[in-house]
């Protein structure tokens, strides 16, 4: 159907997903350096080699005019890679479903004989609750999207708001199992019981070692964010009395204003956010 080159270091070539891809459609060639590819050209090039700023031209002989270039980048140099010709960038921990997702998308493009659009990004990472206890939380993928002009600065700030909400909920309510009502109880210095108890639980490995998993992606004008925690999850209380001066519980309102879809799975341990902008050229 199509020819796929998987070009990378030993660890990359021995990844679980390579076997799955090799067993799928398309003629798959594995190589650990450009020398090994001889004079072949490929429809899709999937690489994790450190590439110069112009990755597509450095792979020039290997690519056909409309090759799709997929780059796996640990260090999040996404903007430079996309500007240099990468159509898809995967960053962070790549799992089989990520590699399959991007290759299926690339094959679809090839099948339709369309020219690949740059700027399909996916990033996956995880961390302990105690490693990033407080914000502000940043998502490098959003900076990259702004950098390659897929979203405006204002759109980025709204998505960042939504990201911070779900990460905070995953840590505070999911991993640390804190109840928001503690925010209402202040000591004489105005310090709330929530902050005090949060500090205590972060230092307790039973709570603090729990992990938060993040998967963020942008493809064909749609931003998708999935956050999962190892704690008890967080389901917003939709029956909270709508007091205008309520100190907590506004996160869901904000999420629903900013995102098109907010879906909770598994008793709130996993939340999925989607925002559609429509495809940009």
């Amino acid at each position, binding site marked *: 159907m199509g020819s796929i080159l998987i070009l990378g270091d030993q660890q990359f070539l021995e990844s679980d997903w390579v076997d799955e891809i090799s067993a799928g459609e398309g003629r798959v060639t594995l190589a650990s350096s450009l020398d090994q590819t001889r004079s072949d050209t490929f429809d899709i090039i999937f690489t994790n080699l450190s590439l110069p700023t112009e990755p597509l031209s450095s792979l020039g002989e290997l690519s056909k005019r409309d090759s799709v270039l997929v780059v796996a980048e640990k260090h999040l140099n996404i903007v430079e890679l996309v500007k240099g010709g990468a159509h898809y960038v995967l960053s962070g921990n790549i799992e089989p479903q990520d590699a399959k997702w991007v290759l299926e998308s690339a094959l679809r493009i090839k099948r339709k004989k369309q020219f690949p659009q740059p700027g399909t990004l996916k990033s996956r990472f995880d961390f302990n609750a105690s490693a990033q206890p407080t914000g502000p939380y940043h998502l490098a993928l959003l900076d990259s999207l702004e950098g390659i002009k897929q979203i405006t600065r204002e759109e980025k700030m709204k998505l960042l*708001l939504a990201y911070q909400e779900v990460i905070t909920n995953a840590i505070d309510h999911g991993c640390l199992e804190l109840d928001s009502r503690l925010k209402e109880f202040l000591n004489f210095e105005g310090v709330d019981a929530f902050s005090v108890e949060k500090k205590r639980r972060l230092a307790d490995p039973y709570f603090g070692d729990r992990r938060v998993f993040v998967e963020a992606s942008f493809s064909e004008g749609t931003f998708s964010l999935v956050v999962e925690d190892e704690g008890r999850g967080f389901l917003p209380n939709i029956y909270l009395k709508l007091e205008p*001066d309520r*100190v907590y519980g*506004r*996160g869901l*309102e904000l999420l629903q204003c900013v995102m098109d879809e907010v879906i909770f799975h598994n008793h709130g341990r996993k939340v999925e956010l989607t925002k559609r902008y429509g495809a940009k050229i």
Partner: protein
Amino acid sequence: MSNEFDTEILGDKGYIKVNGDLDSEPSGEALRQAFNVLFDKGQRTIVLDLSGVQIINSYGIGKVLTCYKRLKSENGVLMVKPLQGFVKETFELLMLDKLLPTDE
């Protein structure tokens, strides 16, 4: 970025100039401390100047509302300097513009 906010008393009002974003613990703590400076001096009309704030999330809003409630419990008032941009939009989304009067 300094994690202290400047405070000032002009006439019968106390002012807090918020520097940077209100989206995390350092800024929340700075707001609490600046608020305490004025509150402990007996100020019961306090104005927040958020013109330097780019991002405010539900955490920051919670801290603002904690200040509001502490003043309200002593028949005080929390006000804001005229809002703009993203902060104004967020306040309006959550209908807080109805709760906190503007100090023109």
